[in-house]
């Protein structure tokens, strides 16, 4: 059984919402105080690739053969077709198919 919901639930949800909005705004607002430079530009260019690679690596580490085949298919389809959205869907379809087959 769950404990009864606290009477301060609305305040708690409001605090959670405020924290979520603060995270979305804070990085944006903080950037005003960073002077533009070639180093900052290089950092900004590198960040998306590093994050995409990190997300992929964590999914591979947490998964098994099915996940590796699915993400491998996504990369291969994307490199071949240059259609990244279609390639991602293809990767997901591979995972769904392999899991349906009991892998």
């Amino acid at each position: 059984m769950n404990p009864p919901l606290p009477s301060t639930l609305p305040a708690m949800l409001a605090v959670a919402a405020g924290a979520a909005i603060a995270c979305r705004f804070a990085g944006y607002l903080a950037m005003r105080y960073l002077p533009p430079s070639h180093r900052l530009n290089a950092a900004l260019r590198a960040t998306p690739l590093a994050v995409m690679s990190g997300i992929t690596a964590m999914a591979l580490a947490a998964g098994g053969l099915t996940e590796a085949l699915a993400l491998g298919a996504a990369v291969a389809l994307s490199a071949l077709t240059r259609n990244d959205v279609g390639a991602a869907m293809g990767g997901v379809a591979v995972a769904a198919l392999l899991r349906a087959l009991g892998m």
Partner: protein
Amino acid sequence: MTHAPFTRAGFGRGFRMGLAIAMPILAYGLAFGLVAAQAGLGTGWSLAFSATVFSGSAQLAAISVLQAGHATLWTMAATVLVMNARYLLFSATLQPWLSQAGPARALPSLLLLGDANWIATMRAISEGEEDRAYLAGTGVAPLVTWLAGTLAGVVFGSILPDPRALGADLMLPAFAAAMMAVMVRSRASLIPVAVGAAAALAVSHVAGTGWGIVAAGVAGAGLAALTARPEGGTA
């Protein structure tokens, strides 16, 4: 100061990209709605939570804090801040581009920011997307399906499809992997790829996936900043 373009056409381009992102989010909305209903949250509060926080990982963590009976104003705020720290990084990287639309358009757009549509928007920027309405466009369909999923999960929780069977858990990694494959254009761009993967794996072991993302971004950005050559060099 003249503002960068912020048009219906750019919004539409983002919206179409958002449709692809939105499908797996429906499955996660269902899962969140089910958990929220089990925690006794009810339809109204569940929807309000999904509309304002709009982050599956943070919402599920906050609900588990509630269910454990540990919820205070501090623990709820801390849980969301820890789970969503990666959004600091996401919004910082968007700022040089997005700020040219002016704060009245930029800040509301950031409310629609999520993992997958950040990746999609950064990719569009790298391809030369000039229209700042693109970001808001990418967020609309995911928000609608997140709310629809939440509602359906609260109401029909017990007849859910398993998100894993549909492969929905792999949508974000598949998206990231496919877009990465298109964005790697030179041998030099393999450096952030390698550094991001190593940092994410090292940190996620001890601190979870959210901090793994932060570590990947900070490590990739930090190395690029340290090794950057004055303008004219390409990375």
